[in-house]
């Protein structure tokens, strides 16, 4: 009973209509899994992934207009306000009124917010460092050779973040 239930879940997960041997499909799945693993290392910060993502963006880009930030994060303004409220309450971000136009709100990271991002990045890199130790010397060499391709691919995407 249990086994058959799991088999069904497995088949569902394989997703209809895609070839699991194609490189883009394999890459999408590997990136998704790796990212989920990395997300789990973010224990200390006590932030939800959405809150953390917003914090990373304002740490990387500097102060941003609330409206621009909402667009960039794919969030509606109400949801973003809620997230900023959480970050502000935790002392990680501040809201600033525009000096020229009082109706425009800017959002900026605090020093504490920047420190949190630095710490989380360190934790994630450490976790990856541990995983990399599981690679053979030959695999390690292949990774060094192939990583620039992934970096070039990502750089060309222009995700709007530094």
């Amino acid at each position, binding site marked *: 009973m249990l086994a058959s239930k799991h088999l069904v879940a497995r088949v569902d997960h394989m997703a209809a209509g895609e070839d699991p041997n194609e490189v883009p*499909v394999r*890459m999408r799945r590997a*990136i998704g899994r790796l990212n989920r693993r990395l997300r789990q290392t973010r224990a200390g910060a006590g932030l*939800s992934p959405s809150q953390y993502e917003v914090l990373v963006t304002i740490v990387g880009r500097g102060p941003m207009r609330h409206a621009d930030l909402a667009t960039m994060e794919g969030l509606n303004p109400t949801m973003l306000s809620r997230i900023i409220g959480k970050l502000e309450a935790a002392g990680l971000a501040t809201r600033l009124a525009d000096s020229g136009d009082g109706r425009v709100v800017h959002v900026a990271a605090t020093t504490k917010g920047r420190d949190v991002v*630095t710490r989380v990045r360190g934790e*994630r890199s450490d976790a*990856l460092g541990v995983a990399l130790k599981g690679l053979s010397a030959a695999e390690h060499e292949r990774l060094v050779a192939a990583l620039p391709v992934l970096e070039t691919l990502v750089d060309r*995407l222009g995700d709007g973040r530094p």
Partner: protein
Amino acid sequence: MSPSRPTAVDHPQGTAPLAPDEELASRLRVAVTRLNRKLRQQALAGLSPAQASALASINRLDHPTLGELAAVEQVQPPTVTRLVTSLEGAGLVVRETDGIDRRVVRVRITAEGRRTLERIRKLKNAFLTRRLAALDPADQALAEALTTLLEHLVAPE
């Protein structure tokens, strides 16, 4: 808006240069996180990032409890309730009472929810296919080699 800066700003300023392995881990982290973010932005299918993530987890976990979903999504119980309510409103999931413990609520993906996930996967696949096709053959071979390594890094899930 501040101008774009190189990716190296990731490293805290004034720290000692990283050892080669640490640098490799750090570069891999940046590349993986950014690619994941870009893929997600390409393929939200009208959902917020948190909704899309929750929907994928509900499918993967095979009708989780609200508590299990909150844990895996790393959100507080009120937030997971709000997420599930919004997905339910869109017809993508349904709430069910657990067959054994009537106090436990589970979330199940609907056929429409599965179609939405499939659409998201197709959009991501198409995006990556286009990007990989733009590489020259040597780089395409390296991208495949890298994918194999990433699979090795994440197996078994």
